[in-house]
């Protein structure tokens, strides 16, 4: 996907004034995050499982080369193939060649963020191969020519009416010429249209939620069953997975599955979790004859061993964006590249560069909700802060902001001075009108107040001052 992350500021303005998007986002807040809370409460062991999940990923990352080699040996012993792709371009080329060798005209694809990352569909189309997205949300946005706006709910930005219009426009030529108004009818129509595509597909391409070193299995988690049809009906199954997906054993999988679905959608378990191991066996009656796993690096190995390594624990559950006030206000497209929300603000600068995505780590209120819900306890705000520092060091900021930040840092590193100045600012700001409760414009802060109101300081002084008084009580 072509990045528009550099245009983040403009994207935000557009998103805030998009009525359909705002309508969809208001549903997100009530949906996923409330259901996650209930699921976590139903399982007393949930917090202990999060610790265990974090530890499993840390252990896997520390021994990544060993587990990848172990995984590879298992796949090869079963007659499968493992392909190593250092860059996105390598992965595209390998998959393109495999599709050609299989004589593919159409490919059934199961939603894969890594496939989005390497812009696989564009490449296949250039080769004259038609990729068909089979996850319902991904299918809808493919018809609309849009990128996904959420890592587990790619069409979360759309309303039912928009979906109805899209289906009418694209399915009419297949004989479905009635505009549908009910959700279950829309789902049934997509099922019928896509069923034929599954049957026609020569190759199935899926991602992988996890790779298991112990058994050489690739794991797919879905609710629709589309990944399962993609990996069962076509003659060739290609798995595209990034290096950090490998974990040691089935027991480790059990821990990660227990936190994944609950964090993502609040389900006890997703409807389908599938473990695929090699091609079909000699006495199997169905399943693919050829099984390929393409393992992608694309900059990830560079993060290992650095203070940013923790981002590689991500299991792509989407909880951080479901709980992010910034994502909730602007949606996923404004982030401008594959991964939106807090994890996008951390990953994208690594994957496409700080020059391109340097604005994303600024899209945070540092409220900390993302970190508090992340199933593998990634310190997302800390990692964003780290990118901000790097960006500052690399002098990518306009010079006025650089000087402003240098001044702020100077003050912030001197607690007494900080308290004195904020206390003063508090009193000065009060002069501008506490009565209204908020400022819609402030001198020297036009950039801030253009899109938000600054709450006015309320009686009682600064937080520090109130804290100090409270402690003395």
């Amino acid at each position, binding site marked *: 996907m072509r990045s528009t992350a550099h245009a983040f500021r403009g994207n935000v303005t557009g998103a805030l004034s998009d009525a359909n998007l705002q309508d969809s986002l208001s549903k997100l807040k009530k949906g996923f995050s409330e259901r996650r809370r209930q699921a976590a409460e139903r399982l007393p062991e949930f917090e202990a499982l999060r610790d*265990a999940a974090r530890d499993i990923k840390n252990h896997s990352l520390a021994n*990544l080369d060993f587990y990848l080699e172990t995984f590879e040996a298992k796949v090869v012993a079963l007659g499968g193939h493992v392909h190593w792709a250092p860059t996105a371009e390598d992965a595209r080329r390998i998959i393109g060649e495999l599709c050609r060798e299989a004589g593919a005209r159409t490919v059934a694809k199961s939603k894969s963020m890594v496939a989005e990352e390497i812009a696989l569909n564009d490449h296949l189309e250039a080769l004259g191969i038609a990729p068909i997205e089979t996850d319902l949300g991904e299918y809808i946005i493919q018809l609309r020519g849009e990128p996904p706006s959420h890592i587990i709910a*790619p069409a979360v930005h759309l309303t039912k009416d928009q979906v109805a219009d899209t289906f009418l426009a694209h399915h009419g030529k297949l004989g479905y010429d009635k505009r549908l108004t009910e959700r279950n009818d829309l789902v049934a129509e997509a099922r019928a249209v896509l069923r034929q595509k599954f049957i026609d597909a020569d190759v199935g391409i899926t991602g992988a939620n996890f790779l298991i070193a112990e058994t050489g299995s690739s794991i797919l988690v879905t609710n629709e069953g589309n990944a*399962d049809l993609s990996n069962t009906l076509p003659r060739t199954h290609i798995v595209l997975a990034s290096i950090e997906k490998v974990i*040691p054993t089935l027991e480790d999988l059990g821990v990660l599955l227990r936190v994944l679905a609950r964090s993502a959608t609040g389900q*006890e*378990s997703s409807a*389908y979790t599938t473990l695929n191991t090699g091609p079909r066996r000699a006495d199997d009656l*169905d399943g693919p004859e050829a099984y390929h796993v393409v393992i992608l*690096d694309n900059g990830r190995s560079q993060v290992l061993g650095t203070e940013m390594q923790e981002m590689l624990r991500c299991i792509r559950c989407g909880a951080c964006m479901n709980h992010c006030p910034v994502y909730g206000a602007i949606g996923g497209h404004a982030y401008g590249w594959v991964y939106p929300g807090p994890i996008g603000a951390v990953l994208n600068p690594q994957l496409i560069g700080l020059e391109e995505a340097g604005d994303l780590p600024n899209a945070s209120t540092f409220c900390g909700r993302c970190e508090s819900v992340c199933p593998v306890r990634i310190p997302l705000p800390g990692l964003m802060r780290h990118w901000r520092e790097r960006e500052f060091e690399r002098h990518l900021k306009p010079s006025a902001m650089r000087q402003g930040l240098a001044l702020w840092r100077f003050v912030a590193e001197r607690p007494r001075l900080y308290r004195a100045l904020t206390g003063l600012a508090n009193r000065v700001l009060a002069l501008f009108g506490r009565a209204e409760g908020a400022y819609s414009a402030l001198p020297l802060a036009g950039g801030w107040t253009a899109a938000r109101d600054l709450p006015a300081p309320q009686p009682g002084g600064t937080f520090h001052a109130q804290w100090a008084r409270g402690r003395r009580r």
Partner: protein
Amino acid sequence: MSARGQMLDAIRRSLKRGPLTGPARDAAEARLAAPVRGPVPKRADLDHAGQVALFCQWAETNNASVARVGAGEVPAEIAGWLKRNNLPARAAMAPSAELDRYDWASQKLLELRRGIAVPDDQVAITGAFAAIAETGTLVMASGPGHPVTLNLLPETHVVVLREQDIVGGYETVWERLRAAYGRGAMPRTVNTITGPSRTGDIEQTIELGAHGPRRMHIVVVRP
């Protein structure tokens, strides 16, 4: 250097070491040989009757229907359920020895074809390798007795599950897979299935029957 060598090298350079050796390698190998269990939810830490009841409760929460019968009643239960739900008395059935145990001939109107599912099949009947009480999840292992297409293509999936195959959590399933297929070995596909297929992709509202079955009926068989 090969792409493989290049990638492994990049990982090792970042980890500031060469190929894994010494105690670190021993520890990783030990973990593969004797997997470490994480926290196992107490929820399913029950006697077997309790686990069976918990499985049934979760399966129904997951939008499946459940019937508990004796081995002699399985074919009649399935024929009756199909009829009550206005579904065709015609099904593709897994060619497993396990399902051969039941007296299908007793149901004269039930038309069965043994083998894979084809696109026109409306109903599939399969067994299950195991089932997980903790979440009401079925575990299907592919093989000559259980083609994967039966789990996915037809709109209705009827599962014949023996009570003794219901276990507490994933951990027991992994042990049973190792016992059946050998350490580190697996069938081509293990589908763990928790209720009928569903999607929340339109306005986050759950609709059943996205790509896989719309309906799931689980017949739990007393030993």
